[in-house]
């Protein structure tokens, strides 16, 4: 009896193991992982486009996408265990200050993608209106926190002027149930979600207050030094994928359906919301590589903000944090 039971358990495990087939790999292409943060989402359309339209393959790359915590991923790329990821500008500078030699090699977002959203009745129409308010944000870290502080500082407000609540990723729910007066969000996502659900909202964009470096393609100094062609292939394929998605949004959205879990199972109304999220995300993507002076200015702004917030203790060499030798 016992033998039969163990055999049965063994059989179940074998069956389950057989469910994980290794993916077919093209031998002539170089396998590489591109680490995205968050979870599969229509906002990552360029990378799905790059895979499905063969832009990565044309560059000799067999790209696998992975999702995870931004700070963990930066540590892996900085330590040379992974080669590429998408990270926000402040992560690059803060990691470099910690001795992790990460470098931005292509810009994805032209605008810093963070903003503050409030229901119309809260009457928050300028950063100065944030005074005395309860603000909800995922936590005192990452792009949301940095973006909010930049916005508050543009109105000469400091932390004693408002109350910050760490609410995790429950911004929409916390806002509509009245737990906070305003929430810090990605401007391409939550405002669209709220409007589609019939809420009238006001949005304050960080990008309107200060020009900061948003999400970019990040690698490490070792990969740049050892294999510049590899970095160039990746950066140019990413830029090409972004451009294609911008020019062909409807096709890009169809491609997303293959990569974003559950998208096909949403109701037509919910699916339309996701399409709107992708379209408003496209509006803040970088379609042409930035000029050097412009890049330097954005990185300098970010550094000044981080110094002001005490997240950097001393200035670092800005020129080392980004390179425009690969994306054009």
């Amino acid at each position, binding site marked *: 009896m016992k033998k039969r039971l163990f055999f049965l358990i063994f059989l*179940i495990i074998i069956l389950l193991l057989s469910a994980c087939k290794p993916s077919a790999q093209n031998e002539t292409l170089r396998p590489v992982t591109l680490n995205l943060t968050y979870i599969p989402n229509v906002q990552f359309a360029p990378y799905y486009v790059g895979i499905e339209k063969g832009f990565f393959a044309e560059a000799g790359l067999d790209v696998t996408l992975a999702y995870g*915590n931004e700070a963990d991923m930066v540590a892996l790329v900085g330590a040379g265990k992974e080669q590429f990821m998408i990270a926000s500008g402040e992560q690059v500078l803060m990691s470099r200050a910690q001795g992790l030699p990460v470098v931005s090699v292509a810009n994805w977002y032209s605008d810093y993608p963070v903003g503050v959203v409030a229901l119309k009745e809260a009457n928050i129409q300028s950063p100065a209106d944030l005074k005395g308010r309860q603000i909800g944000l995922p936590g005192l870290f990452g792009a949301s926190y940095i973006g909010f502080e930049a916005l508050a500082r543009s109105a000469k407000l400091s932390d004693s002027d408002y109350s910050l609540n760490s609410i995790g990723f429950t911004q929409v729910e916390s806002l509509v149930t009245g737990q906070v007066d305003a929430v810090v969000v990605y401007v391409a996502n939550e405002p669209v979600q709220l409007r589609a659900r019939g809420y009238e909202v006001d949005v304050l964009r960080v990008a309107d207050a200060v020009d900061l470096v948003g999400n970019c393609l990040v690698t490490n100094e070792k990969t740049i030094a050892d294999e510049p062609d590899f970095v160039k292939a990746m950066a140019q394929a990413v830029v090409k994928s972004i451009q294609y998605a911008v020019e062909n949004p409807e096709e890009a959205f169809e491609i997303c359906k293959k990569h974003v879990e559950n998208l096909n199972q949403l109701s037509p109304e919910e699916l339309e919301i996701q399409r709107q999220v992708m379209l408003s995300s496209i509006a803040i993507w970088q379609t042409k590589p930035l000029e050097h002076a412009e890049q330097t200015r954005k990185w300098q702004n970010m550094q000044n903000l981080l110094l002001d917030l005490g997240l950097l203790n001393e200035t670092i060499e800005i020129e080392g944090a980004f390179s425009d030798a690969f994306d054009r």
Partner: protein
Amino acid sequence: MTEPIKNEPAQRLGPRPSPLLRVLYPLGSVLLLVNLWQILYIALKLPAFILPSPKMVWDKFLLILLNGTWWHHLSWTLLEILLGLLIGGIAATLIGYGLSKLPFMERLMAPFLVGSSSLPMVAVAPLLIIWFGAGLGSKVLICALTVFFPVLVNVLVGLRSTPQELHELMRSLNASPWQKLTMLELPAALPVLLGGLRVGTTLSVIGAIVGELVSSDRGLGFLINVGRGQYDTALVFVAVLSLILMASLLYYVVLLLERRALVWQTWRKDHL
């Protein structure tokens, strides 16, 4: 040291109900809960992304069941749990046996055993994923670690609870170490060991989900993340309810295994 998990069935209240009633009671409680939920849904008038109705959740379940998504993710989480249980359980049993034979090692390990009961897996999981990658391996490791310590403590306690006179009897019969293990120590430790495994099973479900919530592209934890990201709260409900169902089923499988393995104990209780 951490308290071992006692393996004694709870005292039954009143006489044993008939088989029909034993099915009807849980069914009734589920129906009651669903009705309460429906009343709440109607009364509170919350948007569906905050509280979906039972029907929305049921429809979502049918949808992902029929197109294979549900099994695709559930089987992955189940695989992580079973592999974790197997590896964690075997490692804990072997190491536990070794420690029981080497008292000085046990004393050396004592601080870890005590500390392990308060190991916050939520805090450790991201590190394990950084060290071992985001694939199946790190999730299995997280599960194995959650199972390891309760089983280890129970193995130690179980082996120590063997009556001294039985040890002396074995010695007087000139039993080999193998005979001692299979005929005395293992049967004596089994009730406590399986009690540990039973608790480990439910813990490993939590372990797998913690790992998947941190970083994954498959599994019920991943499905929860996707549902949250798309404001598809019905999907989150389906994933969470599936987890509860899976954890309960696993618990009963171990319970069944326990009953089979410990037939002699029931016999002893009935006859002695």
